[in-house]
């Protein structure tokens, strides 16, 4: 909604008009007010049609393009100097031993070719000497070395009697050193300048195939629409994430926006458009292997997580908002294990499983293909049409059992009819349990701007259909009962025994409905929100969470969505009429954290706390009242009474360590990171690497591809030859307005099926002519993994690009189809591969290579 305040918007890695059509009304409002809209994309789409500038680009070269913007801004001295100096780490000094990719032909310092990993020692800040430490409590009384967050020898002892505040204060590091003139060659600013010096408009044209003039027009538009009076925004979606350089790619946009002063301000920012109704919620309240709800890292055998005390010491950051970690961790354990979770038994921390590596989707599917996974439960996901779909279908054939919760008979639920093996040889026992529709259950979802909306049940589900909530609740209760009765040889039963599942509905809640045993979503909502363990009253703020077991809270970031106001429990997630109060609308739903809609909004005021301009006024310091204010009603994303002129405090714990001009509370130095000395496995500054499968070599470095890309060298997942001749065409996959993801919620709907009935591939007339393919004819997309058959949609909206003097063709293929439903088609993902970003294990479905041939795949 904030996009309506932008003066320029760049859509890149997003086809917003098609994939988020209703959200697109806000950029259109900005356009009506005079904003310039720009679409940078391999294809001319319905988004391009609405934009003032369409800029073609070769799939997977976005870092070269955005790095080009960084270079253009720095070379022409167009960065927003006052913003950059105060709010970013531009002036911070980096270890003199740091070596850039420019000096190292595509590698940063610290690369270990044996382990294919970086040692980040030379990427660190230069700091003052850390304060003296007093010996830390441990049963042996010995002092342990190593900063917080870095692996140390385990500290012995339990959390009983531990004063976390003192312990965290004792671990304060030194203060980062800065050169505010930005002249020191070790400043982040100078490192950036050197790093991007070769990313010139000419180089952008050579790598990306983007005509130089179009690139410069984008750069000039962004510069002209940034600064005190104007703000520009970037909008992205999975067109940026699904790359082997996905995280770095988004970071490059972060660099551009920090340099232009567009973060934390109305109409600015980098907007992530997420694809599923509650994908934000399922990341926050994570059904992901590596994070517990509230972005707390899952205990890891490879980290110093041996006991609760060690886990907390490793995870707590003394100089950021994460200094409060002990309260969040203990409250979560209290929520999960209830009465018997006490300091005496470390709140049953030891019963939690620890991860032992990457257990994300792709590696688990590899394990499955090797027969190591016995059972799988699918809640609304459809791996049978997912990446390297043939591989995944064959892997599923190794399962002993499979449970599918869905509306329709999805491809995955009948994978056994479509794997390579004969069904009679597939020994998987399969259950299909019909699921309830959103209208048929209570619950909350978190949308793409972090706003939590609570929806109420409006109808009964048909037949045997039940909510997924009921499934997991029922399964949990049944398992508890089974283990309570005793299971010979079963280990670690304390967790199961103590797991709280007290969600039985109040009779009034189910009085109107057929099913009387539906668990209370509101009770779970309350557990996520957090409550006082003794009074059971909901907590209004995460500031109320304690590390002594007196509070319980499933996910600290959501605390406050349920509140106690004048003795009444108020559900702030409810969607109440009359709460549309403009673009912030603070009373419509509830945005985590603490109903802060615009993050880092302290940056909307200058270092002195005054609005950058009257036009872009948002959060500001009221000197008379000695407080930050926001007239739009947004939550202040800063310490409310911390004056702008507050100096940094070398002995301050948490955000008190930062000065009054440090808007980025979750960062250890409070600054926006142009240089990320930690948190990333593949480098502190984004660098252009070619996609894992590319028709051309890297023009910038000898190192062609991200050196620590996650690759899966297993049968059935062969990669196309890099820069070879067999697979010369670049292909990207995408979604259409008329369908959703793998189509399980759309291909069974006649109203939608008729709008986009069949799989097609968009291909330029030039390539079509070369391959003798007429519009509407069948063609085959071929890779080492397989073949997908589709209709040709010949259109000039696709164009050949000139890359380093040679023509490169690109084609595009939507991936909504499968062999079930009423709009059926080949599975696009038959041709994709398992290859992933090293930071987050997201695959590279947006840029790979293929060969196009005329004709059908199967007779």
């Amino acid at each position: 909604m904030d996009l309506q305040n932008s003066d320029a918007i760049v859509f890149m890695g997003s086809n917003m008009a098609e994939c988020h059509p209703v959200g697109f009304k806000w950029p259109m409002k900005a356009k009506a007010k005079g904003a310039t809209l720009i679409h940078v994309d391999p294809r001319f789409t319905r988004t391009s049609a609405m934009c003032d500038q369409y800029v073609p680009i070769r799939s997977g070269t976005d870092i070269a393009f955005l790095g080009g913007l960084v270079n253009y801004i720095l070379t022409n001295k167009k960065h927003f100097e006052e913003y950059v100096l105060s709010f970013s780490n531009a002036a911070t000094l980096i270890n003199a031993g740091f070596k850039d990719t420019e000096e190292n032909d595509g590698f940063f310092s610290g690369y270990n070719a044996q382990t294919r990993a970086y040692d980040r020692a030379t990427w660190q800040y230069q700091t003052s000497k850390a304060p003296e430490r007093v010996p830390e409590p441990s049963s042996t009384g010995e002092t342990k070395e190593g900063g917080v967050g870095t692996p140390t020898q385990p500290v012995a002892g339990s959390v009983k009697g531990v004063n976390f505040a003192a312990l965290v204060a004792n671990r304060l590091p030194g203060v980062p050193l800065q050169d505010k003139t930005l002249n020191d060659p070790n400043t982040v600013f100078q490192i950036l300048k050197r790093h991007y010096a070769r990313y010139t408009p000419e180089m952008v044209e050579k790598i990306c195939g983007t005509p130089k003039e179009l690139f410069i027009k984008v750069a000039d538009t962004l510069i002209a629409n940034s600064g005190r009076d104007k703000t520009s925004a970037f909008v992205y979606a999975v067109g940026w994430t699904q790359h082997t350089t996905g995280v770095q790619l988004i970071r490059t946009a972060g660099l551009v926006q920090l340099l232009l002063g567009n973060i934390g301000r109305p109409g600015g920012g980098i907007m992530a458009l997420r694809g599923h109704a509650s994908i934000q919620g399922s990341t926050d309240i994570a059904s992901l292997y590596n994070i517990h709800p509230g972005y707390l890292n899952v205990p890891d055998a490879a980290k110093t997580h041996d006991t609760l005390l060690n886990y907390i010491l490793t995870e707590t950051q003394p100089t950021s908002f994460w200094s409060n970690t002990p309260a969040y961790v203990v409250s979560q354990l209290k929520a999960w294990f209830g009465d018997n979770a006490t300091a005496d038994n470390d709140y049953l921390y030891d019963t939690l499983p620890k991860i032992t590596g990457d257990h994300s989707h792709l590696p688990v599917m590899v394990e499955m293909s090797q027969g190591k996974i016995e059972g799988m439960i699918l809640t609304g996901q459809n791996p049978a049409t997912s990446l390297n779909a043939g591989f995944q279908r064959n892997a599923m054939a190794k399962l002993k059992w499979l449970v599918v919760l869905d509306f329709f008979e999805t491809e995955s639920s009948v994978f056994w009819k479509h794997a390579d093996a004969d069904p009679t040889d597939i020994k998987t026992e399969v259950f299909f349990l019909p699921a309830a529709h959103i209208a048929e259950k209570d619950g909350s979802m978190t949308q793409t701007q972090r706003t939590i909306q609570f929806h109420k049940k409006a109808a009964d589900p048909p037949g045997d259909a039940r909510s997924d909530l009921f499934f997991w609740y029922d399964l949990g209760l049944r398992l508890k009962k089974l283990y309570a009765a005793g299971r010979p040889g079963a280990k670690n039963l304390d967790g199961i025994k103590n797991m709280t599942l007290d969600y039985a509905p109040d009779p009034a809640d189910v009085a109107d409905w057929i099913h009387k045993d539906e668990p209370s979503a509101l009770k779970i909502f309350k557990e996520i929100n957090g409550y006082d363990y003794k009074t059971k009253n909901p907590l209004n703020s995460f500031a109320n969470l304690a590390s002594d077991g007196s509070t319980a809270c499933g996910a600290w970031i959501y605390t406050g969505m349920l509140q106690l106001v004048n003795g009444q429990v108020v559900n702030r997630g409810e969607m109440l009429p009359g709460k549309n109060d403009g673009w912030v609308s603070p009373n419509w739903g509830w945005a985590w954290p603490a109903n802060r809609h615009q993050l880092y909004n302290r940056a909307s005021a200058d270092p002195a706390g005054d609005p950058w301009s009257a036009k872009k006024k948002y959060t500001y310091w009221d000197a008379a009242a000695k407080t930050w204010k926001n007239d739009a009603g947004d939550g202040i994303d800063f310490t409310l009474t911390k004056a702008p002129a507050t100096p940094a405090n070398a002995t301050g714990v948490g955000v008190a360590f930062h000065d009054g001009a440090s808007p980025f509370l979750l960062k250890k130095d409070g600054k926006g990171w142009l240089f990320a000395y930690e948190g990333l496995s593949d480098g502190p500054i984004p660098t252009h690497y070619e996609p894992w499968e590319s028709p051309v070599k890297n023009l910038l470095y000898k190192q062609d591809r991200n050196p620590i890309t996650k690759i899966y060298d297993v049968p059935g997942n062969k990669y196309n030859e890099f820069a070879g001749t067999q697979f010369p065409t670049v292909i990207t996959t995408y979604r259409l307005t008329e369908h959703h993801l793998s189509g399980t919620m759309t291909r069974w709907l006649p109203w939608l099926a008729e709008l986009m009935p069949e799989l097609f591939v968009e291909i330029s007339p030039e390539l079509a002519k070369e391959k003798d393919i007429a519009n509407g004819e069948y063609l085959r997309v071929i890779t080492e993994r397989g073949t997908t058959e589709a209709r040709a949609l010949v259109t000039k909206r696709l164009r050949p690009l000139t890359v380093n003097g040679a023509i490169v063709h690109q084609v595009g293929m939507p991936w909504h189809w499968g062999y079930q439903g009423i709009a059926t088609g080949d599975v696009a993902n038959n041709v994709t591969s398992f290859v992933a970003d090293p930071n987050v294990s997201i695959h590279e479905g947006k840029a790979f290579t293929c060969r196009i041939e005329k004709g059908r795949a199967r007779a």
Partner: protein
Amino acid sequence: MAMDTVTSRRQFLKLTGIGTAGIAAAELGGLGFDLAFAGQRAARRKLEGTKQTASICPYCAVGCGTLINAKTENGRTTIVNIEGNPDSPISTGSLCPKGAATFQLAVNPLRKDKILHRKAGATDWDTEPMTRDQAMTRITQLYADSRDATFVEKDANGKLINQSTGIFALGGATNDNEENYLIAKVNRMMGVVRIENQARI
């Protein structure tokens, strides 16, 4: 939103979203049309006697507001109409084609409302019906068996890991926060760490 029974013209007007130029609801109310004239038309048939509930579109993450009208007959409440919620500041009443089809996602002859079961090596679903209790009893047993059979208490270095390696819970991005919370909680308490959703894919 509390559920309201749509009985009055005033409440019909709530459904009037954007896309009306220069017409205040009050003005329309003052036009003096005879409601009886509308007798044969769907609006009255459809919405009278229904209850209206604010909900959300289940497709992408924009989070558009919907209004669901449902009717109760013989103790069962079924959906009659779903359209945009003009009160939502996010969507101000609009929907995309998928959102506009949310009704057909629920009310659809192809939607499965029976439990299906396939035996190992079978070429089709069982023909005999399975109750939810039968299915859940069997699933609980399979889950526990796989949990115990693949349970690793300590890793090679003797570190306590309490991990069950043989079960994979996949999905969640189409689910409510509360459902995700239970996916994360129930599985982890059982030692399962292979928990993933569409945010990765």
